[in-house]
């Protein structure tokens, strides 16, 4: 096939050392990018260079290395600010990942506000990371979680958000892109609707940042969370963007070093933003690696990446839909580069094992989105999620392997 991305795919693939490692004696076909994406040399080297040349603890010592480490860490924060188009680095908090970012908002923003009978509004397609933290604070406060439905394509109608917002709604939590179904949600519209009712919005951007250009000001998001490891960056590092006026009014979540100005047993004053929310020694090499990952994807161009992933999605949809007995789970009009599906007579778990034997790595199960999957009356699905380095041939390998599995189970 002659269709190609607007960047040099062969050169790009050579940037990712793991892609040339055989799996079970076959070339790796890595289609589990939604769970975690692979890392380019640029990220691996940035982390190593930090360890070899700049490591010490940040914000502490007067010595040269501590200053270098601080510069690298704060440089990474500025890189993230530009990536999200936040107004200020005071709005960029480093966390362990999306999950921790959402828990921070749940515990520090929501919990002190919630009264019995108050409501947190989320959609049915959320990842458990955007469900369970709200259930925890609701249990503690007597508030409740209200659920925005999805239709049989896996789409959310913003009008349902409008309908379900009530005088008791304290926050709307929504995925930007569904990890289980691929749906791209109309988040700007949903945010505008919530804001008209005076309700702030947290966006779970874990699946969006690798594919879409994010501008938190244009979206008017109040909180935006994502993870480094889904963006070709390191694991163990993530980001919470928060609107400064909201963050400033929030109490700290965890206490410890770095988040204080002055400690005495009579009382402690907290550090300014964003440090108030970064207790303890942060993941410095992770932040540096994340900044390198952002440099990497922006050098290619997110619009070029998403254009190529759209072609991969079209090809996958076309190839897989020819397979008898295959049903897609999640067929939104607006979809990111992933396909979730089931095949008659084969449990997704068996499909995952058979595909792995052919070197094709996909995710099977409920994808940490049990309510979303249950909507489609299946216990699990198989999910292939695409990244910037995937090829049309790899999509063909996926489709061929599914056919092989189906024939094995005949």
């Amino acid at each position, binding site marked *: 096939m002659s269709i190609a991305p607007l960047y040099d795919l062969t050169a790009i693939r050579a940037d990712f050392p793991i892609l040339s490692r055989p799996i*079970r004696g076959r070339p790796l076909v890595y289609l589990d990018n939604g769970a975690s994406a692979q890392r380019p040399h640029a990220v691996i080297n940035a982390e190593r260079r930090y360890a070899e040349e700049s490591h010490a603890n940040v914000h502490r010592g007067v010595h040269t290395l501590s200053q270098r480490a601080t510069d690298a860490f704060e440089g990474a924060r500025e890189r993230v600010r530009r990536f999200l188009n936040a107004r200020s680095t005071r709005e960029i908090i480093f966390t362990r990942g999306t999950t921790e970012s959402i828990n921070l908002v749940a515990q520090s923003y929501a919990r002190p506000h919630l009264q019995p009978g108050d409501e947190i509004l989320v959609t049915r397609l959320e990842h458990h990371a955007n469900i369970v933290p709200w259930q925890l604070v609701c249990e503690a406060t007597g508030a409740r979680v209200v659920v925005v439905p999805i239709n049989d394509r896996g789409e959310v109608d913003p009008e349902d958000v409008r309908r379900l917002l009530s005088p008791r709604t304290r926050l709307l939590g929504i995925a930007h892109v569904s990890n289980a179904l691929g749906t791209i949600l109309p988040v700007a519209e949903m945010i505008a609707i919530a804001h008209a009712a005076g309700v702030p919005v947290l966006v779970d951007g874990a699946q969006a940042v690798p594919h879409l250009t994010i501008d938190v000001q244009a979206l008017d998001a109040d909180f935006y969370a994502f993870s480094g490891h889904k963006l070709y960056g390191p694991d163990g590092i993530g980001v919470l963007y928060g609107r400064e006026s909201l963050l400033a009014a929030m109490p700290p979540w965890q206490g410890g070093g770095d988040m204080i100005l002055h400690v005495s047993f009579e009382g402690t004053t907290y550090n300014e933003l964003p440090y108030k929310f970064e207790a303890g020694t942060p993941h410095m090499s992770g932040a540096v690696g994340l900044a390198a990952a952002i440099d990497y994807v922006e050098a290619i161009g997110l619009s070029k990446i998403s254009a190529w992933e759209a072609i991969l999605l079209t090809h996958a949809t076309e190839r897989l839909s020819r397979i008898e007995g295959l049903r897609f789970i999640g067929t939104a009009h607006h979809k990111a580069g992933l396909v979730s599906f089931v095949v008659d*007579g*084969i*449990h*997704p*778990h*068996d499909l995952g*094992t*058979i595909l792995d*034997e052919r070197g094709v790595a996909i995710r*099977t*199960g*409920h994808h940490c989105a049990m309510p979303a999957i249950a909507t489609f009356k299946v*216990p*699990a699905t198989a999910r292939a999620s695409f990244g910037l380095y995937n090829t049309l041939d790899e999509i063909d390998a996926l489709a061929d392997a599914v056919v092989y599995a189906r024939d*094995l*189970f005949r």
Partner: protein
Amino acid sequence: MDLKDLYRDVILDHNKRPRNFGVLAAPAIAAQGHNPLCGDQLTIYVDLDHGTIKEVRFEGSGCAISVASASMMTEAVKGLDAAAFAALHAQIHAVLTQHDAEVPATLGKLAALGGVREYPARVKCASLSWRTLEAAIAGAGTAVTTE
């Protein structure tokens, strides 16, 4: 490693046409098994006669390995008392988890589970029904989970 070693014909057959599939009415004991990783959900029903398995059935949904293992188990355990079941369960456990374990000829069809040990992620699938029946016999009646 060959997929055909995991998905042997006996396994594929029991997956497609599970034996003793269905429910047993009270006073049969029911126990539930759940594998959260893949969503497998099995209910095992067992009728005990002075500690001996008189009748056993199962229902639920799961992958081929868990369904076939449950189906073959129901065929193999009828007539066993608790001690004999425990001995068979121990043999199966060894076959599923130990690379060098001999597969005893006495296992018959169950020997087909011998391919599972090469796929560590799938061991839980194969053992779910056994652990659930064990719980039912022990009178636990509580839910079993692989996690």
